[in-house]
């Protein structure tokens, strides 16, 4: 089954209550390169949605546009029905949309535990006034956050490394750290840009399980940019295909494999090998 253009537009702009994220006709050019050229899709609340496409399709740029790292030339982004186009990244982050980066970006000179604690929202100790006159507020919140971070690290298998500098973690451990750090921020929407890049198959499986668990436990909506289609097929209820900066198709992995345009643009000849049966 393919999704027609009109259906895409409908999903991108209507039924505001059901969508965590609505991206409408987003465009962004860098010089002469139209990196994103009319991307339109809607992400239903509480789902895990894949965002796939060839290298250079504009996936990371879409993530950057949604999260406010760069401002679009045109088009709009709605978070839970509210227009967030053009807001500062921190304003969007505060509204509950947290994104990760394609290359893992930990705080290298802080410990694993600190990486988590610092990522929680609304620590009263981050206000200068409180540091000066009410230091207890920050201390109390810190004490809570330490315990929450330890629990989280235990879940993610990073507990033994909690007092290690994040710079010293392996590539896979850094991916786990990024996900556990995001958990601390209690996001409603989590945008993960290739969270499994450079990770061994066993850990990919584990990361996938963590994502599903977080989705079920907290109802977090996930958008997963990923080249590993096996895991996408496994955990994503719906997949958005982006090519040349525009939405090419939306559907389940099984549907997409039968979509000629998608196969031509991305899945290619080795579709069966990559996707499995």
């Amino acid at each position, binding site marked *: 089954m393919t999704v027609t253009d009109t259906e895409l537009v409908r999903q991108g702009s209507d039924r505001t209550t059901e969508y965590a994220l609505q991206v409408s006709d987003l465009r962004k050019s860098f010089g002469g390169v139209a990196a994103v050229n009319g991307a339109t899709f809607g992400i239903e609340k509480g789902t895990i949605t894949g965002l796939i496409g060839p290298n250079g399709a504009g996936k990371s740029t879409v993530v950057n546009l949604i999260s406010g790292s760069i401002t679009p030339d045109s088009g709009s982004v709605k978070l839970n029905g509210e227009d967030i186009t053009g807001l500062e990244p921190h304003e969007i982050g505060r509204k509950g949309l947290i994104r990760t980066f394609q290359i893992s970006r930990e705080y290298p*000179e802080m410990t694993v535990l600190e990486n988590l604690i610092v990522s929680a929202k609304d620590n009263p100790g981050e206000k200068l006034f409180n540091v000066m006159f009410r230091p207890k507020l920050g201390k109390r919140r810190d004490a809570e956050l330490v315990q929450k971070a330890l629990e989280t690290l235990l879940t993610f298998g990073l507990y033994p490394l909690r007092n290690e500098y994040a710079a010293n973690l392996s590539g896979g451990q850094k991916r786990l750290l990024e996900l556990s750090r995001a958990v601390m921020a209690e996001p409603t929407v989590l945008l993960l840009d290739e969270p499994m890049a450079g990770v061994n198959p066993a850990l990919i499986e584990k990361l996938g399980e963590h994502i599903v668990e977080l989705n079920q436990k907290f109802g977090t909506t996930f958008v997963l940019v990923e080249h590993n289609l096996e895991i996408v097929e496994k955990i994503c209820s719906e997949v958005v295909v982006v090519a040349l900066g525009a939405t090419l198709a939306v559907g389940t992995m099984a549907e997409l494999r039968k979509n000629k345009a998608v196969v031509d643009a991305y899945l290619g000849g080795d579709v069966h090998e990559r996707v499995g049966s």
Partner: protein
Amino acid sequence: MTVILGYAATILIFFFTYNIFTLGLNIQFGYAGILNFTVITFMAVGGYVSAVLVMPHADTANGIYYILGLGLPWPIAALGGVLASGLLGLLIGQIALRRLRSDYLAIVTLATGTLLYGLAGNVTSMFDGWQGLFNVPQPFAGFRNWTPLGYSIFFVIMAGIIFGLLWLFANRLYKSPLGRVMRAVRDDQDVVEAFGKNTFRIRMTAMVIGCMYIGVGGVLTIAYITALSPAGWTTGETFVVWAALLVGGRANNLGAVVGSFLVAVVFNESTRYLPQMPSHPNLIPDIRYILIGLAVILTIWFRPQGVIPERKNTFYEVPLGKDVNAKPGQTSLEADLAKVGE
């Protein structure tokens, strides 16, 4: 004996003021990663403004010009100087911290510093131009009938107390959630921003606090020396503070103190005893800069984190009440590590 004590007092005051400069720069660079390449400008602004607030009206009949001349009590004037430094930091921050990456920030601060240096020198009506301010009244000088040594000792104690308070606050800030998020900004600003934190505000806070610290150092400097002219705050002085911080160890306040002791006190004072060569009056200061440069190179080569590196922060942990060692897929080494952590 009196001479030695007086000398020791002067060195101590010098040491305390340098500590305050390095603490201020540490808050900016060590905590928040802000490249402030015009530390000395904030020192000068703090010093000048406190001076023109405490001094009487300018004696224009004798060719001495400066603004204000309000003759305020020293504590109020000192506060004014510190606030002026902070305000200048706020203004520069508005330009430099908003969108610019750290390398541009460095250039903006350097350019602003050069600009203000030229202004202070050439606009005579402000702080008496290249001649600078002199005969600045000393704090609490009329309090009692001080002997010169007695006053020096009093000043040491006062500077020491001020340094102590600033030291305590710098450490409180470091350990606070605000200090932590500053360090996160230093490590990766974009990520902090993505986590919903206003990194502009965080960096601005570090910038202004740091500038106010440096301003305090400036206020104490002019109060003790009783004079300040542009020759006393050339661009090179900024890099002495930087050298102190880098040699001592950034993001560690003890490192900042050790660094300012090594760089500002040891090098400064040891070069003082080199034989003067009348034909080369600049030789000694030049040797001082060469030594400081060498110290920085050696530190970066052999001990890039400084003599006293940033400490690892650990937290009080309430045991989780679970078998933390029994995680599937954990190596025995990891389990052992976990046990050690309990």
